[in-house]
Structure formats: C-alpha cells, structure tokens
C-alpha cells in the first residue's frame, strides 16, 4: 500500500500539470492580457504573473504587448512657401488602454499601426503645410522650428489617437530624414556649383589682397626702421662733433698754427695713395731747377 500513496501523489501532480495547461495562463511583465468570455472582454490584467481561467471554449486570453513599438513613415509634402519636401518620421507608440485597444483592433498591433500611419499622414499635411521651408533648414537659429514641428506633429497625432479612442499613446516622434524631389536636387547642385565658383574667386582675391597688404606693411615697417636708424646715426655723429668740439678748444690758443696744421693734414691725406702729381717748374722747390734767385742769399 506504500506504493499506492506515492503513485497517487505522482498521478495527482500529473493531472495538475495537465489541468494547468488549460486553466492557468501567464502574463509576462511586458504584456497586459484581456480575458474574453464567449467572445466578450470580461477581465483585463495589467500586472504580470500567473492567473486562472476557464478552459478554451468558455474563456480566451488575448495578450497585448505593452512595449513601445515603432514604425516609420515617408511622405512628400508641400511647405507653406511652396517647396516640395520629402519627409520621413519615426514614431514610438504603445498600448495604454487594452480595454479600448482590444475591441478597436481585435488585439492586432499591425492593424493599429496601419491606423496610426493614417494619422501621421494627416499630420504631415496639417502641420508641415503650415511651415515655410526655412523652419526646417536654416543657419539662423531663430528661424529654425525643427523641434517645434516634431512636437506639433506629435501632439496632433496624440490628439487624433485619443479622439478616435485607439487606446494607444504616441510616445515620441522624430524627423529622421529630410529630402528634396530628384528634379530639385539637380537645381540645388547647379546652385552649389556656382556658389563654389564664386567662393574660389573670392578666396583668390582675398589671398592676393591680404598678401599685398602684408608686403606693403613690411615695406613701410622696414623703411621706418631705416629712417629711425638714420636719425639715430645722425644723433650719434652729432654727439661725436660735440665731444670733438671740446678738444678744439685747444686750438684757440694759436688759431694760425691750427689752420696751418689742418691745411697740411688735408693736403697729406688728399695726396696719400696712387697719386699722379703734375707740377710745373714754378712750384717750390722745383723752382730751384730754373730760378737761381730762389737760392737763399745766405748761401753766398
């Protein structure tokens, strides 16, 4: 009889496992569940864990993924100033009201996404069409409304989803791509090309004028340096003259001698090197050669 109790225990466990297959269901932490009784939603479960239910023909469990889903959408839109823009946005959304969501989309996330894509399309024309091109793209920070446009689209889709009782929440929306129609890119290229050419000649002209400026400034500076040096040199020479003048005081004792010595000194230094002298016979002492009267009388 010992085996009996063990086997009955094991049998009971097996039956339990078997029964739980039909009667118990789990809700994961990322999910919420809606239980339908004969097709009508009767209970929704938002906390994760294990729960009981009636077996399939009576009750059914529909699990709804509560995580944030995302999709992308691409559209050509006309800005308020008549530019065609190709705009891509990505949208993050999640189911926040399963009771509303479930009957609306039958628990299908892809159906919900298709509806949301419709809302995004409405938002494109509704929001983007009210902004000029410069709100998307501008070097002027004040003109740019990039983040504002994202916000406006988000709010609009949010409001639409609420009004339509989707039971979903739009978490965020971002512009992921901005483009122009192909024919416009060609025009942009042409404009860019001419801009580049202008830039090239501008740079060239600027380089030349800058270089010329540097050169003329250098010339001016060196001329000034030389002029200053010249002035300084003159001043130094003046100082020399001044000092020399002190020594000239000596000559005042006998100006006649001083003049005589200076003349002789000048003569000597003038005829110092590589000199060719052309003299006539009247020059003393050559006059001795012709004129005997020049011989001193004292010699007689």
């Amino acid at each position: 009889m010992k085996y009996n109790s063990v086997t009955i225990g094991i049998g009971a466990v097996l039956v339990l496992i078997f029964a739980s297959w039909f009667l118990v269901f789990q809700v994961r932490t990322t999910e919420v569940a809606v239980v339908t009784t004969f097709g009508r939603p009767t209970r929704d479960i938002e906390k994760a864990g294990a729960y009981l239910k009636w077996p399939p023909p009576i009750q059914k469990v529909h699990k709804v993924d509560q995580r944030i889903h995302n999709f992308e959408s691409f559209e050509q839109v006309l800005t308020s100033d008549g530019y065609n823009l190709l705009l891509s946005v990505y949208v993050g959304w999640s189911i926040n009201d399963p009771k509303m969501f479930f009957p609306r989309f039958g628990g299908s996330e892809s159906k919900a996404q298709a509806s949301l894509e419709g809302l995004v399309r409405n938002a494109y024309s509704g929001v983007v069409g009210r902004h000029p091109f410069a709100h998307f793209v501008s070097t002027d920070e004040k003109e740019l409304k990039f983040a504002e446009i994202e916000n406006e689209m988000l709010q609009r889709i949010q409001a639409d989803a609420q009004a339509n009782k989707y039971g979903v929440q739009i978490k965020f929306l971002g512009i992921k791509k901005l483009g122009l129609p192909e024919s416009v890119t060609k025009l942009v290229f042409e404009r860019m090309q001419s801009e580049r050419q202008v830039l090239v000649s501008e740079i060239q002209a600027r380089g030349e004028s800058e270089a010329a400026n540097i050169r003329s400034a250098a010339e001016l500076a060196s001329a000034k340096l030389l002029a200053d040096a010249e002035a300084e040199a003159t001043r130094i020479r003046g100082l020399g003259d001044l000092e020399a003048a002190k020594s000239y005081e000596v000559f005042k004792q006998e100006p006649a001698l001083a003049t005589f010595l200076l003349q002789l000194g000048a003569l000597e230094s003038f005829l110092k090197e590589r000199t060719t002298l052309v003299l006539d016979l009247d020059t003393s002492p050559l006059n001795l050669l012709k004129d005997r009267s020049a011989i001193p009388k004292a010699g007689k």
Partner: protein
Amino acid sequence: MTTDGIKLTPSRRPAPVEPPTPPEVPDDSSSQALSDALRSSFAIVRVLMIGLVLLFLASGFFTVGPQEKAVKLRFGRPVGEGEQMLLGPGPHWAFPYPIDEVVKIPVGVMQSVQSSVGWYATTRAQEASNTEPPPGPSLNPARDSYLLTGDANIIHVRGNLAYRIKEPGLQYVFNFANASNLVQNAFNSALVFAASRYAVDDVLTRDFGGFRELVQRRLTQLIDRQQLGIVVDQIDLERIPPRFLKEQFNAVGEAEARRGKLLNEARNYESQAINNARAAATARKAAAEGDRARLIASVAAEAERFNHLLPQYRSNPELFRRQYQSETVNRVWTSAQEKWILPPGQRRIELDRQPPRLRTLSPLKVEEGH
C-alpha cells in the same frame, strides 16, 4: 508522462498478489518469473524517474557572464523588487521554462549601430573594390540619401554610434519591441537635426567638431526623452560633399591652399624685409658710432700734436712754418706714384695711355678678328 503512468499500474498489481503466493511458490514458477520481471522493470523505471527529476532540476542552472545582468521572471513577473531583481555575474538557479524565465541583459557590452540616412547608395563591397556607381547630376530619393544643410545645400554624412546599455538595463530590455532600431533612428534624427542648422562649409571643414558635438548633444537629449536607457560611448562621423560636385569642392580647397601659399610667401617676404632693414639699421648706427669714435680720437690726436708743436711755433713762427711745410711736401711727393713735371709753356698732357694698348693685344679681340 502518461506512458510512465501506464507502466506503473502493472508493477503495482503483483504486490498484493505476492503475500498469498509463498505456499504456492513451487507450483506456479511462471507467475514467479513474471513477478520478478515486473519488479526489476519497476526498479528501472524508478531510477529513470529519479534521473529525470534530477535532470529537470539541473536544467535550471545558468550562469551570468561578467558583462551581463540577468532578471528571473517567475510566471512572467520579475523576482525581487527594484535593484534586487538584478542578478550579477556567477551561477544561478531557476525553475525550468514554464515556471521561470531568465532574461539576460548585456549591460557592459559595447553595441553599435550605423546611421541609415545621409549617404548615397553604395555597399561596403562596392566601396572596397572601388566599383561604386558613378555620381549623377541629381539624387534619387528612393536610392540615395543625403542631409540638407542650414544653407540648403546637399551633403553626405554617415556615422557609427557605439553605445552601452545603462545600468540597470531594465528599460532597454522590457520597454521596447525593437530598442536598437529606435537607437538608430534617434541617431538619424540627431544627424538631420544638426545638419539643418549648419552651413555646408562648417560641416565639411570649418566647424566639424561643433557639428559632431551638436549631434551628440541632440542624441543624448533624444535618448533621455525617449528613455532608451543607453549611454553613448562614441560617435564616429564621416562627411563628404556630393560626389557630383567633388571637383568644384576640391577647387575651393585648392584656392584655399593657394591663398595660404600667397600669404606664406608674403610673410616670408615680410620677415626678410624687416630683418634686412634691421641689419641695415644696425650697420648704420654702428657706422655712426665708428665715425664718432674716429672723429673724437683724431681730434684728440690733433690736439695733442698741436700742444706739442705750440712751443716750437711760438719760438719762431716763420721758420716753423717753412720747415714743417717742406717736410710735409716732401712726404707727399715721395709717396706719389707718378710725377710729371711740365716744362714752362706746355699745356697738354696725355693721361691713361695704357688701356688702348691693352685692348689691341687682347687675345679675345684677336679671336674675334678671325
């Protein structure tokens, strides 16, 4: 499991039969053999079952790697509250699947995504083998992607974003159906955002650092706002002008280089001119100093000689004058190289007679004559 149950039932049957059998043992040897067989098969089944249970329990062991965290979900609900639900590196145990589920979070592992906007249609293989399709005069939005800059120019930018899941990492794993796709789109959006306010030359050359910083700032902002729960490690960006306009953009670069060269030359000239002027100025001042010193010295020497000669002169001025003059004249005449003494009446002399003679004798002249 049901087969085990079936096997159990026959093994149970011989047990109640056994007590009355001992007296009949010799009579019924066949039933004895049957009961032995059943007993041994029951033992085997028991061992098997224990083994299965052990295997079942052992399958619950798992290890968490050094750069991971793990969360145990029991019936779908995390075990533990807040930070305590995170299991660190090491061995752990959980019930097998239907009861527990282990979710690993690669917290410290570097992950990366590539931007998917901003570059023209190409593949890595085409790039490597240099067989990219040639650029056309326009960009097809279905194929080629690009960014619009603040000055409405077109530019190509692509990037690689390296990121890690921020501790504890629960958001990244449990809150998003496709978290890495959202990271990529946040990165794309940050690129578009940054480009929309930068001029083309700023992105390409002038302020690329600022552009990258703005991308990073915007990306961090988006990550916070969307609560992606990641940390940006590094952003690598690559940017080029439209391939169709490559030459035009290169021409601008060349013009810049030429301008740089011109400026360099001018600066060289500047430093040379100023150095020369400085040297000349120094030389002039030095010459003046020299002149000054010479003048002072010579005047001093003159003065000394004057002082020396003064007594002689005073004693007999006329004699001194004659004597001194003839001394000087002697010196001058002796040192003169050539002396000509003209007889009275001759008025003309021919100077510099040598050069014509030299010229006629010049071998060069002779050569030319032939």
